[in-house]
């Protein structure tokens, strides 16, 4: 109030013209936080001074729950970590169990896992693509990508009776063999889907406004990516060709011919390009897997009560968002002594304060969208 009664010489005191920094709580209920995430933004006008994510709104104690459940009981829970690409969670968990007990998974089961996993990657990237368009203000791509995603979900419905939380993988294999007509259905879909990445490209990446909104935005340098353990498409968008499917092949990935897509820029556009290209590669992998699908058993002989020997393991798979890891410690009983879940989004989000430093409010949304995190997975 003193400023009102005394005249302030603004030229010699520029701070008198300074505007207040306002604190803006983005979330936990906000359309672009993609779940119950709170982002505490400090704004100077339109510019972000600091951004601090606040997580834990959907913490369900997954790691604690594992200690009270048998190995088999836990499988269906893992679906609810990254619900957009649920197969990878089950797959990774089952992989960890199999490593613990030294179980050899039949080749047909591995193929089925690859097919469902890559379909899942497709659907997850489709959701991401639509949401990314939405975040920068284009509503239309969402309806297109959801149309295709719906087809994939129907395929999953056919495969395991569920659209999102599949509960398909089992320790030692998968739950069911392919239903009749499945292969034709997937082939039809792939034929249809072939030209779709180009359609999305025409919708978004040929658009000058989309380019202006994403190029040079939220640049994730390699140093930052290394330091914050960023993995998956985000890392590949920064020019690091790291893909477990290629570099540390698990399952039967070594038998497929596909490319690891990278972009060197590290900005939101690069991450977008990587994901669109990954969709093409996933489609290729599915096609090869369908062609080479071997006959045989779909599950290994595993006793009903799964009791792995004492020991520990750390299994990793390349999920749609990066490296998903399960660290299981067995004390010889039917329940894990410790189950640690390494999720890609956790690291992806921890880099956020660095990426959001000194950007504009509108870019916050674009950057968050381009990083592609899943809140239930972060909170576990």
């Amino acid at each position, binding site marked *: 109030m003193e400023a*009102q009664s005394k005249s302030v010489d603004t*030229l010699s005191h*520029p701070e008198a013209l300074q505007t207040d920094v306002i604190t803006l709580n983005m979330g936990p209920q906000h359309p672009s936080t993609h779940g119950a995430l709170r982002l505490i933004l400090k704004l100077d006008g339109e510019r972000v001074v600091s951004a601090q994510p606040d997580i834990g709104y959907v913490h369900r104690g997954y790691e604690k729950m594992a200690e009270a459940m048998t190995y088999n009981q836990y499988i269906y829970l893992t679906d609810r970590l990254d619900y957009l690409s649920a197969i990878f969670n089950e797959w990774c968990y089952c992989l960890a169990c199999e490593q613990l007990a030294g179980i050899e998974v039949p080749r047909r089961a591995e193929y089925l896992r690859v097919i469902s996993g890559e379909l899942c990657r497709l659907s997850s990237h489709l959701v991401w693509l639509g949401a990314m368009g939405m975040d920068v203000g284009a509503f239309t791509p969402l309806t297109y990508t959801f149309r295709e995603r719906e087809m994939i979900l129907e395929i999953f419905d056919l495969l395991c009776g569920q659209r999102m939380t599949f509960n398909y993988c089992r320790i030692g294999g998968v739950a069911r063999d392919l239903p009749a007509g499945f292969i034709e259905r997937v082939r039809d879909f792939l034929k249809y889907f072939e030209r779709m990445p180009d359609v999305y490209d025409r919708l978004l990446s040929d658009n000058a406004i989309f380019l202006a909104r994403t190029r040079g935005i939220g640049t994730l340098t390699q140093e930052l990516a290394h330091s914050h353990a960023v993995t998956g498409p985000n890392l590949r968008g920064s020019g690091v060709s790291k893909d477990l499917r290629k570099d540390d092949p698990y399952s039967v990935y070594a038998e497929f011919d596909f490319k690891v897509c990278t972009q060197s820029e590290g900005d939101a556009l690069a991450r977008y390009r990587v994901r669109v290209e990954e969709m093409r590669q996933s489609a290729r992998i599915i096609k090869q897997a369908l062609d080479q699908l071997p006959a045989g058993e779909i599950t290994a002989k595993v006793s009903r009560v799964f009791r792995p020997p004492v020991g520990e393991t750390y299994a990793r798979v390349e999920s749609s968002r990066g490296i998903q890891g399960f660290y299981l410690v067995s004390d010889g009983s039917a329940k894990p002594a410790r189950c640690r879940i390494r999720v890609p989004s956790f690291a992806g989000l921890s880099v956020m304060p660095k990426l959001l430093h000194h950007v504009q409010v509108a870019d916050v949304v674009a950057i968050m969208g381009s990083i592609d995190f899943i809140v239930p997975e972060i909170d576990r």
Partner: protein
Amino acid sequence: MLTMIGFYLLSVLAVVAGLFLVLSRNLLHAVLALAVASMAVAGLMLTLSAEFLAFVLILVYIGAVVVIGVFAVMLTGHFDHPKLPTSNELKGLGAVTSLGLLFLLLGVVLIQPIAQARTVAELSVKQIGTLLLTKYVLPFELVSVLLLAALIGAIVIARGKED
């Protein structure tokens, strides 16, 4: 008759809004009162069939002055404190200025017969334009230069030192 009723209603509105503008403790309300007052004055001009002036008044006073005012008030904050003083140490000077202005205006009104003011108001846009670019070209250009200087000055102050 309709115009007469309109004239008196608008006059009352203008005065009330003006008083509210001066007396309100909430800066934002005050600025908005200025908008209402400008609107009322523009309406008065319409009743005097000075359409062009009326719309220019709306454009400049509401579209520019009031909006900038609202921005300034919002950006500085502290605008609705109940203890906000409605006067300051320049009270005396302000009184003298406004009284002087009042007498000046009264003088003009008394000297000029109303009828003549009517005809002036009925000048068409074309005539105003012609006058601005012939008879009053020098003041017009001077005002432009002044405004330009003010604009640049404002930018210099707002930018501050390069950081």
